[in-house]
């Protein structure tokens, strides 16, 4: 329970940072997707239905604050969680570099999933061009910021084990 609360607090802080703080900075054009990092962390360490639900909730929360279609981020986050979960079952992802690469790849996957869904359901002309322009920078930013966030999240693990 304490672990869930801790995780929820971190996710909340990430959402607040993403929506209220980072956009104010001069580099606000490239807001790092901290929620994705939390989602990847869940895929790596929360191998349970609760983890999948948390990833969905994170995506849903992102949907609530974004102008996209409801369910878009929820789908993308759920997909990321699933793929990371499957990857972590097959590969040993434990060192910092591999996690950074994983976050970078996860961001690209999330974007790809969203672009596909938009293309499928909304067909917004020219959106992919805009996304293609920023996706690499945002993926890199999320990847760069992932080690400290992972370090913060790793403090919750002992709580989970205690629970």
């Amino acid at each position, binding site marked *: 329970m304490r672990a869930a609360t801790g995780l929820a607090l971190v996710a*909340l802080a990430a*959402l*607040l*940072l993403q*929506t*209220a*703080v980072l956009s*104010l*900075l001069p580099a606000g054009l490239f807001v790092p997707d901290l929620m994705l990092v939390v989602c990847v962390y869940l895929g790596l360490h929360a*191998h*349970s*239905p609760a*983890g*999948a*639900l948390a*990833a*969905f909730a994170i*995506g*849903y*929360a992102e*949907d*609530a*604050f974004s102008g996209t*279609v*409801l*369910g*878009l981020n*929820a*789908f993308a986050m*759920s*997909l990321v*969680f*699933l793929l990371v*979960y499957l990857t972590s079952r097959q590969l040993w992802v434990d060192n910092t570099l591999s996690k950074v690469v994983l976050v970078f790849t996860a961001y690209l996957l999330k974007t790809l999933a969203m672009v596909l*869904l938009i293309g499928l*359901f*909304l067909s917004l002309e020219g959106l992919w061009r805009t996304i293609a322009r920023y996706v690499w920078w945002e993926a890199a930013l999320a990847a760069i910021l992932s080690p400290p966030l992972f370090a913060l999240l790793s403090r919750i693990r002992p709580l989970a084990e205690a629970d």
Partner: protein
Amino acid sequence: MWEFLRRNGTLATSGALLVLSLALVSTNARYQRLDDPASRVLLEGMRPLQLAVAETARLGLAVWRQYIALVGLQRENDALRKRLLELEQEIVRLAEVEQTNRRLSELLEFRSAFRGRAVAAQVIAKDPLPWFRSFVIDKGEADGVRKGMAVLSPYGVVGQIQQASRHSARVLLITGHNRGVDAVVPRSRARGIVEGAVGDGCVMKYLKPGEDVQVGDRVVTSGFDGIFPKGVVIGHVTGLSRRSRALLQVAQVEPAAPFDRLEEVLVVESGNRREP
């Protein structure tokens, strides 16, 4: 079935959530985004937090920008102070250049008054011992400076070349005990010899008892000694010594040239005559 779900709960949940998400996307795309209550709750619930965080972040950013601006101002201030210092130094340098220019112009004008050879020189060293009353100039034999040549300034007679090396020369001032300068008082044409005296001044010796010499009279070179050109100011009379039984009278002369402040001088060939 239940066993499969129990063993693959995470996969099953993820799959179900993916399907649910797709349904959400599909429905919302069709109906231009539903006004779902969950989103409303999230938006409303997060509002105070977002407001507080955003205000705090804005305040922090404002403080930071203010700090950066202050740092910028400090830097600008430092740069301006530095520039001011540089400009002050430049002003001093330019004033010095102007003064040098004025002195050199005077020297040039003075030099043009002489026929024959005249060498402009700069004072580069002063006598380390004050009682010898000499200084060193930056011109020597290579420039045509020879022992015994007259040294003048636009203000008046300075002295004589005492010794010359290849590229420098030592000048003995007229206030030193050197050979005298044949002098004349232009007002009365009284003649005498100006020599160095004890102290900083000079004396004009060998004045006949009846000669008309008064305090304040200007004393100039006569040109008869074959060293100093005729008509160059030596100084002015500051006092007279008239002894009733003495055959000759002596006048105290204050040199016109400011020896302590001289920076440029003119070395003139012996026997050079001044233009009328």
